[in-house]
């Protein structure tokens, strides 16, 4: 199960990066980056997965005593939670930049704003 998830995760990252580095429209770049972010989240969760174990919630199904043998590694999940929210933060910021760039310069093509070079 985790091999599939990790494989898909890495493919998503590569495809996301390919989309981000070849498209010239800024919105397409941001979309591709979100896809790559989802890929990263997939890999992060897949690393914590162990066969035949359940979610790290201590309820009637998993009592506190047998927790050590029944639950999967909770730490990557905590990391992914933060990673998703930070990913959204950066995406929202980039969208605002894109909108502001469109409002100020009227272009959405990243290869057009090259006035800062050399």
């Amino acid at each position: 199960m985790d091999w599939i998830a990790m494989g898909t995760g890495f493919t998503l990252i590569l495809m996301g990066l390919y989309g981000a580095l070849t498209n010239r429209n800024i919105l397409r770049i941001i979309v591709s980056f979100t896809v790559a972010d989802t890929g990263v989240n997939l890999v992060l969760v897949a690393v914590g997965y162990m066969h035949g174990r359940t979610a790290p919630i201590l309820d009637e199904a998993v009592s506190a005593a047998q927790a050590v043998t029944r639950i999967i590694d909770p730490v990557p999940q905590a990391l992914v939670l933060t990673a998703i929210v930070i990913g959204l933060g950066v995406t929202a910021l980039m969208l605002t930049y894109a909108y502001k760039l469109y409002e100020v310069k009227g272009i959405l093509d990243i290869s057009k704003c090259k006035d800062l070079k050399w």
Partner: protein
Amino acid sequence: MIRRFAVFLLLLALGSIFVNLLMGYVPDSELNLTARYYAEHTAQDIGAANIVTAIVITYRGLDTLGEVTVLFLTATIIGMVLSQGQKHRALQRQLPPSGELLTTGSRLLVPLILLLGAYVFLNGHLTPGGGFQGGAIIASAALLLLLTDPLRRFSHRLISVVESVSGLVFVASGVLGILYAGGFLDSRILSTGTFGALFSAGVIPVIYSFVGLKVGAEFTSMLTNLAETEQS
């Protein structure tokens, strides 16, 4: 054309790095050092049923504090950037009234969504979900209101007050942790109560609900800022 080919080559190389990583990856059969500690100590130390919430709020509380600040920062930057150019309030163009289904549906659904959001972040330490998920759900409620009436204006004052108050509560509970409990952001300033009850696991529910309110407020402020950029 060369750019695509160059990017393709680079990504192949990056892929080879990932393949190397995959080959070196051996899934654990046993919980490692840190996970085992969390599995054993969360129940009696923190008293939270949802171990991930315990980690997110208490053990790695500084991360969540950072993360909440990320959202606060994003909302503030979006507010600053979009208000920069908007000194002149252009006149609003008349939008056709939104469909009947949408208005009645939203009038029915919005309270339910708010209730669900509140439930999710109140029971963060018991069932899966928590502040961030609950906040997102509340934001989607605000979203629905925006869809039905795009010209609706949320009071920025209320949003920023909610946002700041909940942020201050989070920081204050962290500082209280130093005074009354083991250290910064230690959730044991309140009693851990009976395991599984609503008011258990120390200050986690309080923190998580305020985080939920804060996240909800921040997403709403992002949406309203974007909505108010409506020009003629």
